């Protein structure tokens, strides 16, 4: 199983019936592919829709129905549309149960940096800062390392997305949470030992007595 699939499958297991879920672009988008058919969740697209469905069949796309990247989507029965003030009212007001976002760095305190690399082109934060500040539960879905460097760092040196710590980080190697503000290794990817994860993780991780493997 490739890294992205591991991450998306594991994140999908966090969704509960009735959850209102916002998926960011990239790996988070893949999560929708692994939600069991009998699990009823609502996907929000922050450009103004609850009830996002899959990519429409050939010839069924409508130019006025797209995701936040401008790509055609479908709307499921029971969908609702609204303006951006309402969309971000839902996000900032804590009505989104889970947001899944990509990350550049998450630090030992759970702080996320995912919108800016100083010195590089800054495309803009879009809705990321509101999502991290406002969603009930923030899950970061990202590769554990990039170019051989751990993305789970002692302290973010990239600009933060929010002062609010995230709730869960799911990588291709590990699941990490932040109980009491301290990065804690909850699970390892199938076939990996705790020591192997620690060896490629910059941040210090608390290790509970039992660290099971992910079930995917």
């Amino acid at each position, binding site marked *: 199983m490739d890294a992205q699939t591991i991450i998306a499958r594991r994140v999908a297991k966090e969704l509960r019936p009735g959850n209102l879920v916002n998926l960011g672009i990239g790996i988070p988008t893949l999560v929708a592919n692994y939600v069991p058919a009998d699990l009823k969740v609502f996907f929000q697209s922050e450009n103004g829709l609850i009830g996002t469905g899959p990519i429409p069949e050939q010839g069924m796309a409508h130019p*006025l*129905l797209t995701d936040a990247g401008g790509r055609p989507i479908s709307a499921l029965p029971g969908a609702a*549309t609204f*303006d*951006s003030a309402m969309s971000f009212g839902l*996000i900032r007001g804590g009505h989104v149960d889970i947001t899944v976002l990509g990350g550049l760095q998450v630090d030992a305190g759970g702080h996320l940096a995912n919108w800016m690399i100083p010195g590089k082109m800054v495309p803009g*934060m*879009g809705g990321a*800062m509101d999502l991290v500040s*406002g969603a009930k539960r923030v899950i970061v879905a990202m590769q554990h390392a990039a170019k051989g460097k751990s993305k789970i760092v002692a302290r973010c040196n990239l600009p933060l997305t929010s002062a609010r710590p995230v709730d869960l980080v799911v990588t291709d190697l590990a699941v990490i949470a932040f109980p009491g503000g301290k990065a804690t290794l909850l699970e390892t990817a199938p076939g990996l030992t705790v020591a192997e994860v620690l060896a490629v993780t910059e941040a210090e991780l608390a290790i509970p007595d039992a660290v099971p493997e992910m079930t995917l």
Partner: protein
Amino acid sequence: MKAVSAEEAVAMIPNGARIMVGGFMGVGTPERLLDELVRQKKSGLALISNDAATPGKGVGKLFEDAQVSSMIGTHIGLNPKAQQQMLGKQITVDLIPQGTFVERIRAGGCGLGGVLTPTGVGTLVEEGKRKIEVDGKPYLLETALRADFALVHAFLADYAGNLSYALTARNFNPVMAMAADTVIVTAEHIVPVGVIAPDHVVTPGPLVDYLVANG
């Protein structure tokens, strides 16, 4: 509400005007007005728009011949021309969180001086802003945003200027229709009064100054 041609509508917009344009990645943008802004070579525009769309689409068209001098938005990542002009300091770009962007416009349209948001606290976004505590929690004071012109795209417009929107093309249009001195609207369909039921009107007619007629 007055019916005008796209040409007449855009002729009212002077060079250097501050314009809000509805749409999200070009979806729900009044393309006919953008085309006319290009044709009339309006310049030095202060653009307030969620994003820079893509080259040749929506507000993206305004970056082809550098008609924008400044932009307030949330994301320009999919328009290389806008990025080049930003990096080349031909335009100044103020990138702000999307929820803050829409609330600032709403405040401008609703007569509020601003709102207190938790978004951006403890990040670079708080630079230069007042931080205000309420019940021990810190918020940023984000001030109201208005424009000279709002360019709005609706799905249905009736003869009285009542507007409704379709699917994800609603986005920033309804808030912008309240936050500018002059509101110019294009619609996919112009319909008789009564076709849009009162409960389905999103932007009431009195908010609309000019509706671009068919043809």
